[in-house]
């Protein structure tokens, strides 16, 4: 449904900055009806990719097709079937909820009975029913986000793009937003591509793509990504992490990874971690501040894949 082929984007040089490559030869395919999460550290090129997908930026090379249409040559066709939820609000905060919905409907040519139907639908799943006359700048953060989503869904997009849509929401509102999104996505078989750097949000996705420095490092189901790490992780905090890491490697034949003050042993086969924990504790008890067994979460996978730390005992 979304087909990104060999995409490269280089920001042109300006007087103050030399040219900068934001995306380099990236290919990614999101199948119809799939819920795909795109994540990566800050500066990984996510936002640039997002702008290109929306058709707001023309890349240096490569192509993007949505539902078979070329995003740049057939922009109008793509805009008609695509909904976009931006990270920053895309509503007029001086106008009421109803007025904002009406403008959006007009921009997409919705009117009459169809519009009434869609509005009814939106009010059913959202909490906006009592707020229609209220100005947007008086809404809570959670409701304002609901309005963004409601607005985009009025047009029944086949493809929905969301750029870190839960930024600034409290955990309950975030949960609520994602639950609604996932439910509607399944019910309508929408293709969704959403960027986020909150990994709990990705656990429920069909696929997770991980970007760094403009490259796609991995793209797989959350299960498969977790499986890359082995099933469990033993995390040790020590008074002198570099020296302990070296000794774990030399004396126990492990492959410890160091992330700041933490030492992580990631390639532990399922069920083996308790025995490992006991043997580490037995040998190095005085140096250990804490030790724990963690189920690998996507966040661990992310850290592993993007290599935020340094391997082994070397600093």
């Amino acid at each position: 449904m979304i087909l990104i082929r060999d995409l490269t984007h280089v920001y042109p040089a300006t007087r103050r900055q030399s040219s900068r490559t934001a995306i380099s030869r990236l290919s990614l395919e999101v199948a119809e009806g799939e819920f795909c999460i795109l994540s990566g550290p800050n500066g990984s090129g996510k936002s640039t990719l997002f702008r290109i997908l929306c058709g707001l930026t023309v890349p240096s090379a490569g192509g993007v097709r949505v539902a078979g249409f070329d995003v740049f040559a057939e922009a109008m066709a793509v805009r008609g079937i695509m909904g976009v939820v931006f990270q920053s609000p895309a509503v007029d905060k001086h106008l009421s909820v109803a007025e904002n919905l009406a403008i959006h409907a007009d921009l997409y040519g919705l009117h009459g009975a169809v519009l009434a139907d869609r509005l009814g639908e939106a009010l059913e799943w959202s909490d906006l029913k009592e707020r229609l006359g209220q100005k947007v700048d008086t809404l809570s953060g959670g409701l304002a986000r609901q309005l963004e989503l409601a607005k985009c869904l009025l047009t029944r997009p086949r493809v929905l793009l969301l750029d870190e849509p839960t930024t600034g929401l409290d955990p309950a509102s975030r949960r609520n937003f994602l639950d609604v999104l996932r439910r509607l996505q399944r019910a309508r078989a929408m293709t969704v591509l959403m960027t986020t750097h909150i990994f709990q949000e990705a656990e429920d996705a069909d696929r997770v793509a991980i970007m760094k420095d403009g490259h796609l490092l991995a793209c797989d189901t959350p299960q498969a990504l977790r499986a890359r790490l082995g099933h469990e992780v033993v995390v040790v905090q020590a008074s002198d992490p570099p020296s302990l890491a070296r000794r774990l490697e030399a004396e126990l034949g492990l492959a410890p990874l160091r992330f700041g003050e933490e030492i992580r042993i990631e390639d532990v086969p399922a069920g083996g971690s308790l025995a490992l924990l006991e043997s580490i504790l037995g040998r190095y008890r005085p140096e250990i501040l804490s030790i724990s067994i963690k189920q690998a979460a996507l966040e661990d996978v992310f850290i592993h894949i993007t290599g935020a730390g340094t391997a082994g005992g070397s600093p």
Partner: protein
Amino acid sequence: MMRAVVALARREFTRFIRQPQRVVGSIGQPLLFWLFLGSGFTGSFRPPGMEGISYLEFFYPGVLLMMLLFASIFSSITVIEDRDQGFLQGVLVAPVPRMAIVLGKVFGGTLIAMAQALLFLLLAPLLGLPLSAGGTVMVILTLLLTSTGFTALGFLIAWSMRSTAGFHAIMMVFLMPMWLLSGALFPVEHVPGWLYVLMEINPVTHALVLLRLPFYATVSGVFADPRFVTSLAVVVAWVVGCLYLSMVRVERRDRGAAISQS
């Protein structure tokens, strides 16, 4: 397309009337300008060939034009806010022709400017300015055309600006002088040669010709005046040119630098 234009223009107008200080400011300021300057200069304003005209009366069409300038420019400046606050990004990804985005903003601004100018126009009879029915229609059409020109010009400038502060600078060194050199404050006829050239290439001068003539001539008389016809052509070219360039500008997207494919 029309639905989108109307929706965007209506939004402009709704936002305007919800900010009473904007309404008061944009009507009050030209009114005070006119009263103070007009009354002050009336005693000493004696250009040859215009003996029967008080400065209040001479200045009146100029103030109409100034109202249009301020109202139009200040509503097109909101495109910077729209971009800043995010509203614009939602419009840009909507399936509307880029011309609709331009026209929505421009007609919204024109509507606001017209509402103000028409209020001010009610003062004309009090000045003893005779305005026939035909003349009134001509004045209104001119106001519409001119304010479209101003708003489109403002839009064109504001589109690529990132801050309203930058726009204010352009306003003072470019847009205000266009009005100052339009013949609104002093007659074109007795200025030094270099200034005359500047004034003649200024489209606002021509807008003022269109605006002033119907107050003093019949409709048929106006169209028989070659100066009126020339000015009409200049103003129409100005409006169409600015609208077209705005559309081209909106259509242009950020582009990545070209790379050598290896």
